[in-house]
């Protein structure tokens, strides 16, 4: 575009005026539209930083697979009722935050049953791949989905090595107040963050203990005097898929 500087005494035709007005108005409106976006990006970044007061804790779970029976699903039922995961009779699309998986050693035939849930990794692949930052790791180690900014792209479901995430495939009603969930959002085990914030333990841990199995132990991985650390000193613990170096918050013993 030839941009000759305009001389002051040159009369500008009205059509030119109109063009200039609309260009400037459009530029102004676009800037106004961009500005909140820039602000929101700031906000999103600020909130995701480890600014939690309790970042000296790291919540974790220890699963003693020797105490875990094959037919038992107390933890699953407790989780389902705590969070209102009622299901719709469609197992392929119904949400599951914790599930019992029956394992069989391919060489020896030895069988065992373990619960698999979100492993609350220190380096979560789901957090890496989420385009909006909805999948995030709280400073105290709990990996969560900010359901307000999840767009339901399901990339985190592709990225999770433990198939821990579920997508909500239908309209929901009757949600629990402490567990909001809705159509088109991805979700997974929150380690009962709403209970942890009130100094309680996750529903699955409580249910397992009340059923007399005590297979699940909840605690602070950073606490050297706590139950997780002392148990880990006595017996070998491992994480699932240690080759991926995710440093999970959920550990397993006795297999």
């Amino acid at each position, binding site marked *: *575009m*030839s941009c000759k500087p305009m001389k002051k005494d040159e009369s500008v035709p009205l059509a030119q005026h109109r063009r200039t007005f609309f260009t400037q108005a459009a530029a102004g409106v676009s800037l106004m539209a961009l500005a909140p*976006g820039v602000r*929101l*990006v700031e906000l*999103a970044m600020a909130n*995701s930083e480890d600014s939690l007061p309790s970042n000296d804790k790291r919540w974790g779970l220890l699963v003693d697979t020797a105490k875990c029976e094959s037919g038992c699903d107390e933890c699953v039922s407790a989780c389902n009722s705590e969070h209102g995961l009622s299901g719709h009779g*469609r*197992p*392929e*699309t119904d*949400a*599951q935050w914790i*599930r*019992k*998986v*029956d*394992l*069989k*050693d*391919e*060489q020896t035939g030895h069988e065992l049953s*373990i619960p*698999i849930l979100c492993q609350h990794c220190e380096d979560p*692949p789901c*957090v*890496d*791949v*989420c*385009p*909006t*930052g*909805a999948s995030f790791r709280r400073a105290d180690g709990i990996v969560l989905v900010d359901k307000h*900014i*999840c*767009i*339901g*792209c*399901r*990339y985190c479901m*592709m*990225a*999770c*090595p*433990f*198939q821990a*995430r*579920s*997508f*909500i*495939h*239908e*309209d929901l009603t009757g949600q629990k107040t402490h567990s909001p969930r809705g*159509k*088109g*959002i*991805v979700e997974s085990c929150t380690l009962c963050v709403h209970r942890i914030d009130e100094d309680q333990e996750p529903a699955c841990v409580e249910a397992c203990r009340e059923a007399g199995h005590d297979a699940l132990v909840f605690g602070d991985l950073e606490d050297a005097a706590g139950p997780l650390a002392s148990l880990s000193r006595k017996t070998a613990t491992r994480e*699932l*898929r240690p080759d*991926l170096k995710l440093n999970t918050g959920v550990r397993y013993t006795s297999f």
Partner: protein
Amino acid sequence: MRAPTFQHMPSSTPFWWVAAIATAFVVVGLVSAHHMESAGHWVTGMNNRVVWGVPHVFAVFLIVSASGALNAASIASVFGRETYKPLSRLSALMAITLLAGGLTVLVLDLGRPDRLIVAMTHYNFRSIFAWNIFLYTGFIALVVVYLWMMFEPRMNRFVGRVGTTAFAWRLILTTGTGSIFAFLAAREAFDSAVLAPMFIAMSLSFGTALTLIFSALIFSIRGDGLPTALMLNLRRLLGYFVVAVAFFVMVDHLTRLYGAEHHSMERFILLEGGIYPMLFWIGQILLGTILPVVMLLQRRCNTLAPTLVAASLVLVGAFCQLYVLIIGGQAFPIDIVPGFSETSGFFDGVIAEYQPSLAEFGLGMGGVGLALLTYLIGTRVLAFLPTTGFDSGPSS
């Protein structure tokens, strides 16, 4: 060779028929999207194991092809080949409309497409998806500028520079698309750096096949045909690109076959997986690679009709390849506890069932229809079509 001149697409009965068909596809796409969004994804075949289905096959196809569709313009502007110059404007238009179609399918399949504004204002830059949002929209903006350089005579001298930028951007964009899968360490079928160059080769192959088909269509609507020199050049290129894709596919599988850890995955894809080996060997290899390459190398097939058949076969192979990659890659179970077989109520350890629903095909076809419709409208609105008689004869 004298500089080509351009014209608007004249109004004609064939034009309106093709536009009507494209519009019908768009309507089907919108109805499908509405059905999926209002009822929720349970009405589709997608589930918690196969989270990306037929819509994503279409979307990835359209996005990858969009990058390759700019090739004709790139060859003219960046590599200076005069034969391609008459096709530059149409090539750029195709790139924009194909990308728009692909992105539309992608956005409408989101669980919350109403949150597109959120996606445009919240970014996690560790995610290749976030980068892709900029790569895709930036590509459209860049190609619009590229077209401006082509259309405005006073800006023609910048066509080379903008064209080179667009060329580089294409490569980065396609790498970004391939990286969506390449970065997934959790999935055995993906998790491979070779997917990035493979996607670049795919973009060249699919984009050139679509260029042949769309260009032949648009010229036949106008009443003449794709000029011979251009057709001969494009078919030769297509042959090379199909071979390039086959090379990357072969390297990928051979490497995987070497490790014992990958044997069950490879056996599933190549031998025992039911629909997946069928689509791979018959769709992707036989129909999508061997047959087209044979046809494109044969001198007696170097007329328009066999060329278009070969291009269509390449597209059949394209869909089969993307279906096997994206859906097959999800159908195979993740080995959560290596050394153990897994069974559960959440379909661990088993091949996932996936029955694509009509709505998913409808949405995908809607994207194709949108690409075609906006392409047609574009030729009416601005002078994209090269005028007849610019054919400089068979190339040497």
